[in-house]
């Protein structure tokens, strides 16, 4: 058999049937749900259909849960519409016998944090969720992608999806990331280079020595934002780090099954000489700590750079877009990014809310005082417990950071955690779209380290000068 990529292998292992035109009925191993899935349940019930594989379906309460006083449960949610969203998830999962990491479940958290943490996310699986950041799970060598509500209903009913085989893009990163530079900076750099639509129609595989050296948490951050480059999925070949991470997790295989699983997982890497439709090479030493200045994740620049000048652009449409973006962001062209005052800090989201992220933040803020409101929102109850066991919460509280309960929170603000109009927020989340964190809010994306240092200086700060 000819040399195949990781993607090829996983795809081909899930083909139920293929039409003459190439469209494939793809089998889905794991299906994750969240509160937003109520639309799909409504469609399912209207069509009088049922859930084919409740045992392969898992639900998390994350988008609408409060990040304060979560212990109070449903009754603690004041807004009736928001409360109803969480309640509907509980009702639907009860009705169809779906395992739920719901409010007050010890495994509750953001779906893309919980899946890996519970060992549900495994190499070689197909994983879907009605959420674009499902690409996160590709960090384990799974083929994982986001779908819309009609597709969620389709997977609930059939456990399959009709898919057109995407093209493949290999991003080969070689070398060592410099001190102060993280996988968040690497992915912002990649998106800046290839563009927010640069990988549309492609499944990305991240490979090379830089990637091999990343922890599982850092790999998740990378794959999480594959979608921000337009990628259908982001994948990384499983290796010993992957297996080490999974071992002993509740849904990971145990005993003899573990050994069988590992030998299967080892067979999934891209064969030498396998062909990709496209390739891009990154030299890790070129990557600096990055921040975004605009309203697309591709609007990123090194922290020691400046806000771009629309006048320097030739294409009238690009120029018009830049002008509009700078107006929205309240920024002057050519202004240095360093030193830009920020009003608040959000450390959280499925991109950067894992234990490793919180350890970095604690290390930076320890012994300092936040000058501006700064929230730390753990990705899950498990992360919260671990952080508290390590005493990180005390470091945060001493530094005047607000330590909250797990959920999506200020990443998109639909639980009510929003930033105010015109507020400038240093955020570890994944999207700086207009109004994403709150109407007229101004988001600057960056790594947890950069967000932490911004909290104590009150302005965008080069972590390399502070660390």
């Amino acid at each position, binding site marked *: 058999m000819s040399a195949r990529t990781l993607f090829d292998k996983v795809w081909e292992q899930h083909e139920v049937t293929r039409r003459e035109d190439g469209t494939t009925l793809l089998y889905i191993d794991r299906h994750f749900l969240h509160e937003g899935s109520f639309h799909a349940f*409504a469609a399912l019930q209207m069509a009088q259909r049922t859930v084919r594989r409740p045992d*392969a379906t898992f639900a998390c309460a994350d988008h609408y849960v409060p990040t304060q006083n979560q212990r109070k449960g449903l009754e603690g949610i004041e807004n009736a519409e928001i409360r109803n969203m969480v309640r509907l998830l509980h009702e639907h999962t009860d009705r169809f016998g779906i395992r739920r990491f719901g409010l007050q479940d010890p495994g509750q958290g953001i779906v893309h944090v919980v899946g890996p943490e519970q060992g549900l996310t495994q190499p070689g699986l197909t994983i879907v969720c009605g959420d674009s950041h499902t690409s996160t799970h590709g960090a384990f060598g799974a083929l994982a992608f986001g779908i819309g509500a009609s597709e969620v209903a389709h997977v609930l009913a059939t456990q399959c999806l009709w898919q057109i085989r995407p093209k493949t893009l290999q991003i080969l990163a070689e070398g060592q990331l410099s001190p102060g530079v993280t996988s968040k900076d690497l992915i912002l750099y990649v998106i800046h280079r290839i563009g927010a639509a640069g990988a549309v129609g492609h499944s990305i595989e991240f490979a090379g020595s830089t990637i091999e050296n990343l922890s599982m948490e850092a790999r998740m951050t990378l794959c999480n934002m594959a979608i921000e480059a337009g990628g259908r999925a982001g994948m990384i070949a499983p290796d010993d780090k992957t297996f080490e991470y999974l071992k002993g997790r509740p849904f990971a295989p145990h005993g003899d099954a573990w050994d069988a699983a590992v030998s299967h997982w080892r067979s999934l890497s891209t064969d030498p000489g396998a062909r990709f439709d496209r390739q891009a090479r990154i030299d890790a030493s070129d990557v600096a700590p990055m921040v975004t200045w605009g309203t697309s994740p591709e609007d990123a620049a090194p922290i020691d750079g400046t806000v771009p000048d629309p006048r320097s652009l030739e294409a009238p449409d690009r120029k018009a877009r830049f002008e509009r973006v700078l107006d929205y962001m309240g920024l002057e062209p050519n202004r240095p990014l360093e030193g830009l005052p920020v009003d608040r800090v959000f450390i959280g989201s499925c991109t950067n809310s894992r234990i490793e992220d919180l350890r970095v933040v604690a290390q930076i803020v320890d012994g300092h005082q936040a000058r501006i409101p700064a929230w730390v929102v753990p990705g899950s109850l498990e992360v919260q417990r671990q952080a508290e066991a390590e005493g990180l919460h005390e470091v945060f509280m001493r530094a005047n950071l607000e330590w909250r309960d797990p959920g999506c929170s200020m990443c998109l603000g639909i639980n009510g955690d929003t930033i105010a109009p015109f507020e400038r927020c240093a955020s570890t989340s994944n999207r700086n779209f207009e109004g994403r964190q709150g109407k007229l809010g101004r988001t600057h994306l960056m790594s947890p380290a950069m967000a932490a240092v911004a909290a104590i200086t009150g302005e965008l700060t080069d972590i390399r000068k502070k660390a």
Partner: protein
Amino acid sequence: MLEKFVTIDEIAVPLELQDVDTDRIIPARFLRKPRTVGYGQFMFYDLRFDDDGQPRSEFPLNRDVYRGARILVADVNFGCGSSREGAVWALSDTTHPDSSAGFRCIIAPSFGDIFYNNCTNNGVLPVRLGPADCATLRRQLEEAPGARLQVDLPKQVVRGPDGRQYSFDIDPFRKQRLLEGQDEISLTMTHQAAIEAFESRRRSVVPWLTPDGEASS
């Protein structure tokens, strides 16, 4: 059953914005509403309405000359970002008085992948044309507001206001489903036997996923 898409001849409205993400098409705060309230009222909400809820007169979709438009000509990376299908429901809704006439076709140089799928799952045809062709169409629609475009799905052709023809690609599977207004779940159900056969093969490859061995029956 979805409304079948064959050939349409409709007013088209240009939208001069790049990278329109689905958060802008429908802000997240509306997604907790059931679809039955009519999602058209939320379409481009923060672009269409000012802080007092008054329509912004400069926004193209608020201009009288484009009233009744059922084709949208947009720019690169339209519908990027969040997977929310509410974006397509908002664009295609005809039930709410504040909705558009219900977009049936969106033309752009490129689309977010998930948005593209969501369109075809709702009977909306996404058409990819080159950036220069899209720019030409947008300029023509700007210069002669209220002009119509013809979109012929069987022939895979868009006809501009000047009669110029632009051919486009669409995969045969989506084309057929749009033409027939076919329900995808019913179609998949006809492959029941293949799905069951796959499941039993799959169980032998990854037995640890279904430890009790009978979970899928």
